[in-house]
């Protein structure tokens, strides 16, 4: 056994247990392998591995969004490369304790929503339960099929100075973290492949298999092949990454409240053009927000009627609505008693010593020792959080005492625990940081399966509080296996084969809508970028020069830019002259101002919004690109010394990301329904952009020199200049240019090509009606026919004043047909939810508008 200390500077913290080193400063037996390896690697290499981990995390697009609804990008999830190691013996005890605790809490939950014997018999003071906001009386007597009423359970576990595990809090609302735990494992096993392989670490896959089986089993009786969905509050929730990750790992649709509806007492998913039944909802929305009819009336995150559907047993919502009544810390004071009563023995995995102030004796004890305790309100919904008595001044202590005395049953006092430390990498080497393990359990058989490991989190610096919101750092948790494990993948051995959901028939209609707009915004952003690039080039060529045709072409392009982006007034209208002669400011605005509708930054923001909303539909590589786009858009606004040069360079980077996104779309995505909508969105947007650009540039003849410059710019902006030159070997001429851009089916940027692809996309969307052709298909056919019949030779002719009315009408007609096609796609396939309102009754007699009887 090695006796070297991993990094010479590492010193355990006085007065707390150290995960890695024993009292004598030697690595504990189960750490020997890892600490030896860390020493061998050395600080520099560890820091390099940390960068590698950060890179992988970026690549997977893992963020912890701490600011809902802000336009700031998500905060990066922090992962320490050094895992925490748990010996197989320690783990066995912990696992047994966790299973027992889950079973105990399950029985408590069952009783609280059933017979309430525990309250009646005084085993649990009724004030604790009846006054807790987690008790949803609306959900009284509602049961899940099967033995477990508590579905998933998590516990935050610390070690006291003797190394004994202590539960700091129980989580039962909708415990988060197991997705992050899986991600931590995925990253660390790639960063330390050899180390991980040699360490014989318990795999996580079996836990997710248990979860999947449990979700199937919890379905209402008689449902053979239940449809499961993951309910998320939306892409801006702080743990949105995990929701999408869970959905895609488990293979279930990710839905928001508005994607579901209750009809006939059952839950349905708004799928494309129809409703599909839903049997199990894995919810990540807090219960009180889940049903605006019976719970919080103004919640826009829920489904009206959801409680009624669970009441009728047509759907199983897990965790059950109301399970958070178990998150009450006051319960901890009574768990030993409840364990004895319900399970017939002592509680094996203890809680942090807790005194509930509703009991006279306990209250006295707490008030006598206020400065030495941690005080917590029993409800997590209460505005106040845990208070460390030791941190308070005398006045604050007196104030706290008064608050406790005025509503004692709302408070608990808990013993502060000097938490164990785990070695954590800093720039200066390994440092001991206080750590907490979040462990997870899900039903298996009539008991529970525990994830071997979990998500360890360590405090950021000297912080006493460990939570992701306060900047905690996560760690992988290695539970050592006593013998080598058989390797099994997540999808292997999952019991009876469950038929997959056909990717061509099932997608929430909101997801389809977001994919469609993702395609449209991506294409629009490309079009704006290309055109702005061309404008900048022409500007470098001619601004301030006396080349009249050049200046005229530049002005025509500026006007076209405003027309195609519809970012009026821009270079059009009364005051346009000033901006036309000095266009720098307006151009910059159009690129960087994300509040400017029609501009590039605004468009990319919208694109990102769509991408985040359909996280589960996109390939994991997509996040590499989405992440860089997110940063590039922020950088666009950065300080600028030489606007044009800098902006051109930044535009180049944005363009690269957009192209990469396009490449991923065509090379790395399955041609499922989501892809079809994205591609259709791209096609229609490209067609509309092309028609708008041509309409704005070629419907009036200018001088030969001007037109030549202008046509060349149009060919550049449509990415067709090289093809044109190769094919026609001449200066750009209108008729040949139109042939190439409109009719040439071999040119992937031509209108004809795009419409053919669009038609294929629309044809592949399943029809749920009898009609042979849907409205959007008919409209598209009309546009395609008009295009095929076009006689470019006749269209390009112009009248004496240079106008080309025929061409103008032709562009307008096509643009109109295609806009109507887009509208028809929207009407036919996407759910059009009207705004949700609360129906408020008359308030007593006073505010009724009613007349008097008779």
């Amino acid at each position: 056994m090695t006796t070297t200390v991993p990094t010479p500077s590492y010193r355990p913290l006085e007065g707390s247990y150290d995960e890695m080193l024993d009292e004598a400063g030697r690595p504990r037996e189960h750490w020997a392998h890892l600490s030896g390896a860390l020493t061998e690697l050395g600080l520099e290499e560890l820091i390099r591995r940390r960068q590698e981990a950060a890179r992988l995390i970026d690549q997977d697009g893992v963020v912890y969004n701490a600011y809902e609804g802000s336009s700031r990008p998500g905060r990066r999830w922090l992962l320490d490369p050094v895992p925490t190691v748990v010996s197989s013996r320690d783990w066995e005890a912990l696992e047994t304790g966790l299973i027992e605790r889950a079973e105990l809490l399950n029985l408590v939950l069952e009783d609280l929503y059933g017979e309430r014997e525990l309250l009646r018999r005084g085993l649990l003071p009724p004030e604790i339960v009846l006054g807790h906001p987690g008790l949803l009386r609306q959900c009284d007597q509602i049961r899940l099929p099967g033995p477990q009423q508590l579905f998933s359970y998590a516990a935050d576990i610390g070690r006291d100075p003797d190394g004994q595990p202590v539960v700091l809090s129980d989580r039962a609302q909708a415990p988060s973290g197991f997705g992050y735990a899986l991600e931590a494992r995925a990253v660390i096993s790639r960063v330390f492949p050899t180390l991980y392989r040699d360490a014989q670490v318990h795999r996580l896959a079996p836990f997710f298999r248990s979860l999947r089986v449990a979700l199937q089993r919890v379905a209402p009786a008689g449902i053979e092949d239940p449809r499961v969905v993951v309910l998320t509050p939306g892409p801006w929730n702080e743990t949105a990454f995990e929701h999408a990750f869970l959905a895609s790992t488990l293979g279930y649709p990710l839905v928001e409240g508005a994607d579901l509806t209750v009809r006939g007492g059952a839950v349905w998913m708004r799928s494309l053009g129809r409703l599909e039944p839903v049997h199990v909802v894995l919810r990540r929305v807090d219960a009180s927000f889940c049903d605006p009819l019976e719970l919080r009336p103004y919640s826009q995150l829920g489904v009206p009627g959801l409680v009624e559907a669970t009441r009728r047993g047509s759907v199983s919502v897990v965790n059950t609505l109301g399970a958070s009544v178990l998150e009450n810390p006051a319960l901890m004071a009574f768990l030993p008693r409840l364990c004895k009563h319900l399970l017939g023995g002592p509680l094996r995995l203890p809680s942090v010593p807790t005194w509930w102030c509703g009991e006279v004796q306990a209250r006295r004890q707490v008030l006598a020792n206020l400065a030495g305790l941690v005080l917590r309100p029993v409800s997590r919904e209460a505005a106040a959080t845990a208070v460390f008595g030791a941190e308070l001044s005398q006045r604050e202590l007196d104030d706290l005492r008064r608050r406790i005395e005025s509503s004692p049953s709302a408070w608990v006092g808990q013993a502060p625990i000097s938490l164990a430390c785990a070695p954590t990498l800093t720039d200066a080497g390994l440092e001991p940081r206080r750590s907490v393990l979040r462990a997870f359990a899900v039903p298996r058989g009539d008991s529970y399966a525990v994830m071997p490991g979990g998500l360890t989190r360590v405090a950021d610096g000297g912080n006493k509080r460990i939570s992701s919101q306060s900047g905690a750092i996560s760690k992988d948790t290695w539970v050592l296996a006593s013998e080598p494990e058989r390797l099994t993948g997540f999808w292997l051995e999952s019991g009876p084969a469950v038929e997959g959901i056909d990717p061509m028939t099932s997608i929430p209609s909101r997801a389809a809508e977001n994919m469609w707009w993702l395609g449209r915004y991506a294409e629009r952003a490309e079009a704006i970028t290309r055109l702005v690039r061309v404008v900048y080039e022409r500007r470098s060529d001619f601004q301030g020069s006396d080349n009249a045709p050049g200046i005229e072409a530049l002005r025509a392009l500026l006007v076209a830019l405003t027309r195609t982006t519809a970012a009026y007034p821009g270079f059009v209208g009364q005051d346009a002259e000033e901006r036309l002669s000095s266009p720098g400011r307006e151009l910059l605005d159009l690129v960087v101002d994300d509040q400017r509708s029609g501009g590039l930054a605004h468009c990319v923001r919208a694109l990102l919004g769509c991408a985040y909303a359909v996280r589960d539909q996109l390939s994991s590589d997509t996040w590499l690109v989405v992440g860089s786009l997110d940063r590039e858009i922020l950088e666009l606004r950065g300080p600028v010394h030489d606007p044009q040069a800098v902006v051109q360079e930044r535009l180049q980077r944005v363009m690269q990301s957009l192209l990469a996104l396009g490449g991923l779309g065509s090379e790395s995505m399955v041609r499922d329904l989501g892809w079809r909508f994205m591609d259709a969105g791209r096609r229609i947007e490209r067609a509309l952009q092309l028609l708008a650009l041509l309409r704005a540039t070629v419907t009036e003849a200018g001088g030969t020199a001007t037109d030549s410059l202008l046509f060349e710019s149009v060919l550049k902006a449509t990415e067709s200049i090289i093809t044109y030159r190769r094919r026609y070997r001449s200066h750009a001429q209108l008729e040949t240019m139109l042939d190439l851009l409109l009719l040439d089916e071999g040119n992937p940027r031509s209108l004809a090509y795009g419409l053919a692809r669009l038609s294929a996309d629309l044809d592949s969307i399943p029809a749920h009606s009898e009609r042979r052709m849907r409205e959007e298909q008919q409209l598209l056919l009309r546009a395609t026919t008009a295009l095929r019949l076009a006689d470019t030779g006749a269209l390009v002719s112009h009248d004496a004043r240079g106008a080309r009315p025929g061409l103008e009408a032709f562009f307008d007609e096509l643009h109109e047909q295609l806009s109507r096609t887009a509208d028809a796609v929207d009407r036919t396939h996407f759910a059009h939810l009207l705004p949700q309102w609360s129906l408020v009754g008359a308030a007593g007699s006073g505010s009724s508008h009613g007349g008097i009887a008779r």
Partner: protein
Amino acid sequence: MSTTYRVTHRTEYRYESDVSDSYAQLHLLPRDGDGQHCLTAEVAVEPAPGDYRERADYFGNRVGYLAIHEPHRRLSVTATSLVETGDRAAPVTLFGGRPWEDARDAVRDPALPARLDAVQFALDSALVAGSPAYAGYALRSFTPRRSLLEAVTDLCSRIHHDFDYRPGSTSVTTPLEEVFANRRGVCQDFAHFGIACLRSIGLPARYVSGYLETDPPPGRPKLIGADGSHAWFSILAGEAGWVDVDPTNDQLAGGRYVVTAYGRDYGDVAPLSGVIYTEGRTESLQVRVDVVAVPG
């Protein structure tokens, strides 16, 4: 002495534009028991709902659930029932002239049959939380060792006297602090305030939603709140049971009162609440209540 009433409660919403879906929850059907007997009760909804169900809620109230999935611009809900009411004064007699502290201390007595109810209704709820200010107001009536009946009657009179009954001065979302500060509101506010006073000094109190006889027999005054749904509060007199008190009309609620539901506060028993989907606004809301004694 018992009277039978026919209660008709009609609520009608009119909307500016189509409502695609409506979901609603109704507390419109009278309870059975506690001094009244509900002979018949039914709900008629227009347009016909795609789904309608009745059940008992946590408090034993009758709740209706309805869902409509056809576009509509009008929703009307009419509840009709026949209820026989008797004398509600029994608990008062049973509790006798005992001091109010007995009722307070009974909450802590594990032998109290309705102990869970006693605890639950003594605790703060979402809309009604006790405070030192309310306790101060209450203690002027609840002087040491005063009989419960005297004390609660006095509190009821003071609320009636101190507060202005002013329809339209508050809405269902007006916080209780504001009602207390302005000393005005409607029956629901007075009920909430009474409950807050009682909870502040440790007494269990619940919110009662129901009706009053619309047209009194000749020679008796028409009561306030008779032309809509009404609300009052109820106090737990130890093992004797609940005593209903109506601060709006300054009296104990007797045989001329019909109870539809009780709960911790209005939020538990709103007569009609729901969720609708529409682009436009609600044009009008009309409520019409009729409580008529029918010849036995």
